[in-house]
């Protein structure tokens, strides 16, 4: 300030304020360089990203607001539930809606017919928005300190604050939607759903995964160069789908490596999501660790054993919130960890996930007050939960 001449008008100052605002807000250019639907530049480094179909998962991915093209996301799941399958269906459905080429490996066509039905762009469908705004004032204020999780740095939703809210709502209509909301109880009917490409696991004289990869390569090479691809690999290694020899390292790891090679060619616009059942292939096994090392992002789902009854009332921080159905652990994030990792604000959080009819939501997990702890429960109910307050006192 002291460098400015005193007798110069204030217009420069206004300009300066404008630029400061511009840098503080991540550059959210609505138009991608090539303006491909469903692809937008990451607010972090400008690399093209695409949505996973789950807004809260998009926000988790290290500030990119989506899965950067060329990256593999590995979703691991404990137990016999199929939450990861729901994530995959959202991912595939988002690809269908965005007219991307979706390749489904090892699944029959019924899988594609059971994709969740489209509700609309994720921003406008959020019917709870108003209610949540009310909540935020009363109860969920403590989440606000956690960096606006719902909005995220990437901001697939409107930023907080009433004025910008309405402005952003106006923008939503003009911008092509990046992420959509789906309803698991309905079935997706979209003209391009017939474009789903199924790659069956047909036995041949080659090793199974080699021929699968070749087929994948051939299909991708045959597409016009601007096509965005999504590769969906549901429950890889599951013995109900894959023959036992696929889980040999010298079959599986070359496949993962070649998949990585295929995706790392800069001309290809591919993302992939893989799920594996951890109960059969535990994380403590060297093979699974190598699969993780070969993936760009690794998240683990740990569903609670009896989410419906025991934890039902106490797991949720409030009665209005849906109780969490499991914990989500982030082991590796795309791009961020490749660079060295660690500077993301989402890292080190405990996450819980809730799958409802309309969305898969990931939010910060907070332990409920102990069952017998009447005082603590009342405290939580009165929205003066002990934890954040204590933290404020200490720091």
């Amino acid at each position, binding site marked *: 300030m002291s460098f400015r001449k005193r007798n110069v008008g204030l217009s420069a100052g206004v300009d300066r304020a404008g630029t400061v605002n511009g840098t503080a807000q991540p550059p959210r250019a609505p138009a991608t360089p090539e303006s491909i639907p469903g692809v937008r530049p990451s607010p972090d480094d400008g690399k093209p990203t695409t949505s996973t179909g789950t807004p809260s998962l998009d926000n988790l991915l290290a500030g990119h607001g989506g899965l950067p093209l060329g990256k593999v996301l590995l979703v691991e799941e404990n137990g016999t539930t199929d939450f990861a399958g729901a994530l995959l269906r959202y991912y595939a459905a988002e690809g269908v809606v965005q007219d991307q080429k979706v390749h489904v490996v090892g699944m029959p066509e019924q899988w594609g017919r059971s994709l969740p039905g489209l509700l609309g762009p994720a921003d406008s469908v959020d019917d709870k928005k108003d209610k949540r705004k009310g909540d935020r004032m009363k109860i969920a204020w403590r989440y606000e300190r956690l960096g606006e999780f719902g909005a995220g740095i990437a901001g697939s939703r409107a930023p907080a604050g009433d004025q910008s809210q309405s402005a952003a709502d106006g923008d939503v209509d003009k911008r092509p939607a990046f992420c959509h909301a789906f309803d698991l109880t309905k079935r997706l009917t979209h003209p391009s759903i017939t474009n789903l490409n199924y790659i069956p696991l047909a036995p041949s004289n080659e090793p199974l995964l080699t021929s699968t990869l070749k087929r994948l390569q051939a299909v991708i090479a045959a597409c016009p160069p601007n096509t965005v691809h999504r590769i969906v690999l549901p429950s890889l290694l599951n013995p109900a789908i894959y023959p036992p020899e696929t889980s040999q390292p010298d079959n599986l790891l070359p496949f993962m490596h070649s998949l990585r090679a295929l995706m790392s060619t800069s001309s290809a616009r591919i993302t992939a999501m893989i799920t594996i059942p951890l109960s059969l292939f535990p994380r403590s096994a060297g*093979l699974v660790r*190598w699969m993780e*090392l070969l993936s760009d992002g690794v998240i683990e789902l740990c569903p609670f054993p009896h989410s419906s009854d025991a934890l039902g009332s106490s797991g949720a921080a409030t009665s209005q919130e849906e109780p969490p159905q499991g914990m989500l652990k982030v082991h590796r994030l795309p791009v961020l960890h490749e660079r060295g990792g660690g500077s993301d*604000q989402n890292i080190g959080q405990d996450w819980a996930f809730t799958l409802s009819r309309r969305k898969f939501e990931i939010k910060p997990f907070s332990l409920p007050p102990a069952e017998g702890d009447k005082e603590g429960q009342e405290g939580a109910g009165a929205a003066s939960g002990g934890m954040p307050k204590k933290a404020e006192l200490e720091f």
Partner: protein
Amino acid sequence: MPTQPPLPPLLTPYVSSLPPSSLTVLSSVLGATGNWLVLRFLHAALGQPSTSDAALGFSETNNGKKRKVVLVSFLRGWEFWRTEAKRLGLDLARLTDKRQFAFIDGLSELFSVPTATPTQTSPSHNPQLRGAVPPRTVLPLRPQPGPVPARGPQPAPRPVATAPNTPTSREIGPVKRLHLSGNGNAALDALEKDITAVINDLKKSMTTGDGQEETEVLLVIDQPDLLLAATGPGRGIGATEMGDWVMGLQQHVHATLLTVSADSPLIHNASTFAHQPTTPLETEHAAFSIGSAHRAHMVMQLRNLETGAARDVSGVLRVSKGGAWGQDDVDDHWEEKEVLYFVQRDGGVSVFGRGE
């Protein structure tokens, strides 16, 4: 936080002067990858000594010798290294043209059959790179980016495994691609031959003018443990073969940096006290990485914070003496140390002690 120099001062003694014919092992885990540290090694070897380095007295580490680097990467492609190095101010494409740096791509076509190579990326590199360089005196030494001329005088010719490869293992742009075919030692020998060809080629090509005869080549092998994991004893490649392979490559270069994964399942499952049955993958991996650490001059381990994740700490770096430390009379001016590091969003790294 103030802007960091590309090379944090605390790291400089560790990355800037590697003793001759030494092996440095850099181990990483899933959540604490070592690419940033590899890039620091590249910067220490290739970067121009900046004024701040000179002021700190680190510029004499070059000893007037020309340093070159060959980077063999099995998990990451040329795009990644190029963009990340650029964030450090290191233009790898330009250095490749100046014959100071060579990248060997072990990712793109390592397991793919030679026929299926629809790669549009590198040919687009090629003309602009070649076109951008003014004709130098270097070029007559390498008339064409075709078959490497140094391949002929190589010892240990193994025509068995390489024969089907030679038509496709052409150099595309700045990048040489590795192919793995065949089994056991023959496959590894073919890889070794490809890599040493690049090394010798780099050694031979003199940079313009100043008549320095001595060139020090640093060989960086990024995650060769993938080779081991993805082949396994079924294809006749085990820890012993891999160890021999690395040792064979070491003979051709001044110093070697080897990065391996050291996640707990890969190292500890092999111990007899492990609670679960051990697979060959785990035993071989443990044998290879621990064996390498024993042959190393210095071991740098990256790991996550034990106390959980923190927002201003990416992980812990521990530098310790390897099994081969002190075998030759090099005065080492570094000490064992454990520090914390933090990789910022802009790619800068700060390294600090606990509590600092």
